[in-house]
């Protein structure tokens, strides 16, 4: 992926970071868009242990299937016992009807299955995975392709800077550079403990968010 970031934007792309403990990530090539023959387009961000989770979603009346499914996951669990997020780029899975909902649920279920296969007990509260998609609207997801690569993405989960970089790269659409940041901080009650924040984001067009 070297040389892919425009020179003027290189200053915004970190070459290292202090990442939060207990989080592992991966970026995997699927080829959601047939024209994408080399870049990662499937991201998984996971906590090694179940964690707290919260999300805000678009207030657009036409909400994409992953928005509906992720809201269900968080509501059902009350924001507890979340394991991670799975994201594909290249296809938004928006305005795709009942099949879109099924596809979004399948993506989450496949990530859940990968964790179960590691011997983790099922807590009986349904999926613990948040789903996101981004890309063109109105096309069905190539779900078989995506599902077939989730185990690879799960197997490649890692905490290194390179893994975070690839993950940030995997969620890009018309973005020209991966957007990744980290920060360290302390809290008043535990001044000797250093906590960390890592964040990745994407977006370049169709941007005027109004989320709740």
């Amino acid at each position, binding site marked *: 992926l070297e040389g892919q970031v425009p020179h003027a934007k290189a200053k*915004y792309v970190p070459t290292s970071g202090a990442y*939060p*403990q*207990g*989080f592992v990530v991966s970026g995997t090539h699927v080829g959601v868009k047939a024209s994408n023959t080399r870049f990662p387009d499937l991201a998984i*961000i996971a*906590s*090694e*242990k179940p*964690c*707290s*989770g*919260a*999300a*805000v*979603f*678009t*207030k*657009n009346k036409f909400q*994409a299937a*992953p*928005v509906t499914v*992720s809201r269900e996951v968080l509501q059902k669990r009350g*924001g*507890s016992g979340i394991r991670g997020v799975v*994201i594909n780029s290249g296809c*938004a899975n928006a305005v795709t009807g009942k099949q879109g909902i099924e596809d979004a649920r399948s993506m989450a279920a496949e990530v859940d299955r990968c964790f179960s296969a590691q011997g983790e007990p099922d807590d009986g509260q349904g999926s613990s995975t*948040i789903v*996101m*998609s*981004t890309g063109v*609207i*109105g096309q069905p997801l190539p779900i078989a392709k995506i599902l077939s690569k989730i185990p690879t993405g799960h197997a490649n989960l890692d905490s290194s800077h390179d893994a975070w970089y690839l993950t940030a790269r995997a969620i890009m*659409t*018309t973005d*020209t550079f991966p*957007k990744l*940041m980290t*920060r360290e901080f302390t*809290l008043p*009650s*535990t001044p000797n*403990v250093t*906590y*960390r*924040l890592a*964040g*990745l*984001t*994407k*977006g*370049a*067009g*169709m*941007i*005027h*968010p*109004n*989320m*709740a």
Partner: protein
Amino acid sequence: TLLGIMCTDAPVAPEALKSILTYAVDRSFNAISIDGDTSTNDTVALLANGAAAPPTPFKTIKESTPYSEDYLQLRDTVTSFAADLASLVVRDGEGATKFVTIRVTNAASYEDAKKVASSIARSPLVKTALYGKDANWGRILCATGYASECGVDSVVPTETSVSFVPTDGSPELKLLVKGEPEAVDENRAAQILEEEDLEILVRLSEKPGEEAVYYTCDFSHEYVTINGDYRT
């Protein structure tokens, strides 16, 4: 579409996480505009696993009234972090050549200030003027004025002032003071607009009040090229 994921190893209870995220997003990802279009997929998630917390005592940050110091510190840290992340999105706006901060001050309420800032940030005429490096305060004022259609009551033409604030720390360039146009030094304006970063400061009154910040970019030929070519 905007997507964002933030992860922390601080220990945070779900209800606190939810309110921290909402507060942070309102002041960051919900305060940016590239082209004024709200996507079907916009989502920002925040995960907290407590992995860095000392084993004993394990203190989980909870929302409470009055808010604890830890809660407020974490909320402000996440807010500033989210604003920096959101800024990266604006810097990568399709075809963008400028990063513009719109600061609206002295409003009757935070909501009023944010609506005015949003109105300016999504105005195609303001954004094309910025691309053309034109200190066109008339378009800024126009967008400020029609924010009243969104329920803003605190815009009073004779109390409104507009300035460009350079990012190099030099004094602001006043374009309009209390509704009266200033004699603008065009060379100075051109100098300021030559820079990638710019702040537009709109004071709705001389009296102290609430402030909101919005981040946006200019509109260029390249935006039309990119989106004319993009296929659904």
